[in-house]
């Protein structure tokens, strides 16, 4: 046995609710050496998480390991009994989940949960475990390492919780740690701290790791080798540098291509750009009790003004909690503003959607981030798309059916999909249906609230391409809200940076490198690059980080 992990011809099957058996992992083989970090990348449904979980001998409900060997540290995890596997989990192999927030028990302190592994496996006395935990808190550069253990999970930030989850995984001195998309849910500025902390701890202790992600740029920073998965099979394996520079497999190239900066077409009608579609002046909105001055206690959006011109796109970018989604809801009238004016197409707009006219509602559509919750699961695609056609345009059955076909065609979905329910569609397909419903209203402005952030890189870039095409054909304008700079850069004519409810800067995509506001500088410099040396070489102004970073 040369390598720490040797997986040979792993096969995993799942049973659908009709009793059909589907092979989801079709003979995967991989090796991980001692102290090596291997990344598993691929789109959702490629089986990357399933493979990672199988290293612990675990298969998710409905799935089972049907063939192959999973040798970890000399033991075949597939053949062990559940009891023997449980002994190895936490001591030989540990797991860091995607959402640390959902994995911590809100009812007990962080320290109790971090040292729980040592108690279950009787590894060391509690006193020693606590000391070891504090050492790990230091190593993971958490703030207040001596005191943070006494807090409860809701008292620390998402990035800190993710690092605490890593501390929980590391306390049993595992030989292998599985990271399941640990930074996907974090802001870019936070992601850097977490990645740096992971990397330094893993290097220092020589721990081997499996890093599951769909973000090639993040993987490039932390992994020694990359394994590309698609459809339950290994497509390509190579060192990080090999994959990034000389990828052979078409799917890997596609992944890489999604990262190439896309040159957006210059608008021919630049002179007509003085045509204002939407103008908002000094909008303030928020939550909580209304105070004497008529403004809410907590201001999520604070005196923001902006202009969207006809046929052009405005990007709004900022970290979570900066008020960008609230701004979208204010414009759409879902969350009425406390102060300020909205002018749409030359006419002043009521603050609440309920008071706007049907035409005004029709001309401004909003598309939400999670197509899962934005589409009614009890209705087929056809009904979902047809409703605005009936509601706004009063089309009869035949005209409606024809228009649904056209709309599906516009968003590049096959017509046969119209009878499906949302649960039977992939993430990208759902987002397209979500978008087709907005198009069905014949809007002038579409507010896109993080519509690509729940999608894989390749799928997201296809959706962005689609949006651009539709804009060319239909002359739409978009307000594009995102925390992902590359997405906003790809489609927007203007980028507005928000921080703490306020607009800090508005620039054009070609001037991103020359941002003037310190927060914009920090934000733009935090976006991971495909270069593997980027993270190590990254020097950030400590003053900036302490002022704007949320550590």
């Amino acid at each position, binding site marked *: 046995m040369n390598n720490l992990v040797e997986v040979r011809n792993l096969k995993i099957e799942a*049973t659908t*609710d009709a009793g059909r058996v*589907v092979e989801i992992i079709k003979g995967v083989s991989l090796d991980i050496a001692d102290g090596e970090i291997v990344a598993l990348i691929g789109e959702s449904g490629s089986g990357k998480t399933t493979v990672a979980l199988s290293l612990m001998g675990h298969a998710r409900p409905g799935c089972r390991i049907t063939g192959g060997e999973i040798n970890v540290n000399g033991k075949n995890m597939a053949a062990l009994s559940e009891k023997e596997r449980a002994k190895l989990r936490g001591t030989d192999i540990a797991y860091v989940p995607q959402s640390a927030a959902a994995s911590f028990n809100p009812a007990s302190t962080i320290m109790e949960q971090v040292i729980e592994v040592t108690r279950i496996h009787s590894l060391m006395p509690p006193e020693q475990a606590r000391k070891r935990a504090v050492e790990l808190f230091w190593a993971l550069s958490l703030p207040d390492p001596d005191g943070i253990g006494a807090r409860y999970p809701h008292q620390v930030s998402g990035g800190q919780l993710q690092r605490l989850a890593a501390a929980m995984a590391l306390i049993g001195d595992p030989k292998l740690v599985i990271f399941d998309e640990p930074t996907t849910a974090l802001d870019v500025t936070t992601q850097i701290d977490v990645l740096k902390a992971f990397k330094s701890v893993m290097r220092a202790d020589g721990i081997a790791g499996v890093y599951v992600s769909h973000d090639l740029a993040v993987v490039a920073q932390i992994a020694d080798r990359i394994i590309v998965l698609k459809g339950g099979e290994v497509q390509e394996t190579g060192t990080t540098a090999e994959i990034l520079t000389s990828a052979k497999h078409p799917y890997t190239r596609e992944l890489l291509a999604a990262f190439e900066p896309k040159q957006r077409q210059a608008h021919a009608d630049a002179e007509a750009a003085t045509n204002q579609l939407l103008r908002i002046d000094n909008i303030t909105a928020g939550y909580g009790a209304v105070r004497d001055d008529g403004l809410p206690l907590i201001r999520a959006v604070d005196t923001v003004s902006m202009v969207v011109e006809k046929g052009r796109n405005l990007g709004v970018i900022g970290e979570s909690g900066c008020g960008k989604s609230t701004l979208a809801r204010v414009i759409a009238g*879902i969350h009425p503003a406390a102060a300020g004016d909205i002018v749409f197409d030359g006419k002043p707009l009521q603050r609440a959607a309920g008071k706007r006219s049907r035409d005004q509602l029709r001309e401004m559509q909003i598309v*939400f981030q999670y197509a899962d*919750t934005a589409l009614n699961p009890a209705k087929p695609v056809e009904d979902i798309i047809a*409703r605005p056609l009936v509601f706004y345009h009063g089309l009869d059955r035949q005209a409606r059916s024809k228009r649904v076909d056209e709309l599906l065609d516009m968003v590049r979905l096959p017509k046969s999909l119209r009878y499906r329910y949302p649960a*039977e569609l992939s993430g990208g397909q759902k987002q397209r249906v979500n978008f087709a419903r907005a198009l069905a*209203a014949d809007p002038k402005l579409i507010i896109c609230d993080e519509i690509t952030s729940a999608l894989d890189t390749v799928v997201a870039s296809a959706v962005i391409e689609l949006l651009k095409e539709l804009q060319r054909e239909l002359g739409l304008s978009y307000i594009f809200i995102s925390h992902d700079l590359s997405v906003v850069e790809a489609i927007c004519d203007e980028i507005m940076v928000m921080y703490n409810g306020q607009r800090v800067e508005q620039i054009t995509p070609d001037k991103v490198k020359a941002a003037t506001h310190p927060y914009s500088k920090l934000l733009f410099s935090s976006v991971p690059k495909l270069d593997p040396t980027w993270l190590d070489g990254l020097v950030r102004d400590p003053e900036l980080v302490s002022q704007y970073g949320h550590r």
Partner: protein
Amino acid sequence: MTMERAAFSRRSFLGHSYNLVGVVAALIILAWTLVAIFASYIIPHSIGDIVDDDYFGPMRQGLWLGSDYLGRDMLSRVLMGARYTVGISLAAVSIACFSGVALGMIAAVTGGWLDTCLSRFLDAMNSIPSKLFGLVVVAAVGSSIPALILTLAVIYIPGAYRFARALAVNINTMDFMTVARVRGESTAYLIGSEILPNIIRPVLADFGLRFVFIVLLLSGLSFLGLGLQPPLADWGALVRENIGGLPFAAPAVVVPSLAIASLTISVNLLIDNLPQKIRDRDA
């Protein structure tokens, strides 16, 4: 192995999978429904006729379920009793669930003071013990079939309301509700077209459960003499009037009890084993 077992206990039909228990329960319910509808054609004797010389007579040819405390044919009385038990309960549960679910969804979608007022009022209603409420109403307006139906319905509206509201509140926070609101949809569309399809399964399960409660409450009221008045009798009344036969193990007291049990248990089993639509992404 689990695969084979699953294939054995669940069969599929018209794109739905169902199991044997559910089918048997459905057949029992169907049988009682048919009996309720056609009772007057199939009863061998009129329910008021005294056909036996003895009272609490045993099962024998011609009197298949024996005779009751006056020597009347028990089979006829149980068959006619099905009409009252099933009919009254079904009418009451339909009114209770329809009003309760509609109010619950309206409260969840509208929110604000309407929600608060409705919830507090119905909570207050809920706090009145159901049998006591029945006693008071019967004492006040007397016992008639419409009064019984309305009383039973009113007793079970708060429960249906709470249940539907709790489900609808969850659906109400979904983004598709926001999308529909921003589209400018009316409350009627929101509750009928966006919320109802998502909660219909649990609501139907609740409907069945509430039906069982109402059958039992109706039987209880009749047993206390507050339900149907003689010579009409539902199953609960049949148990009560023949309770004297208990020491003689008379079929007259056992059979209506079994009838109540078979109907309520079947409804429960059917709810637990409703056919499931097979949704298979690639099939």
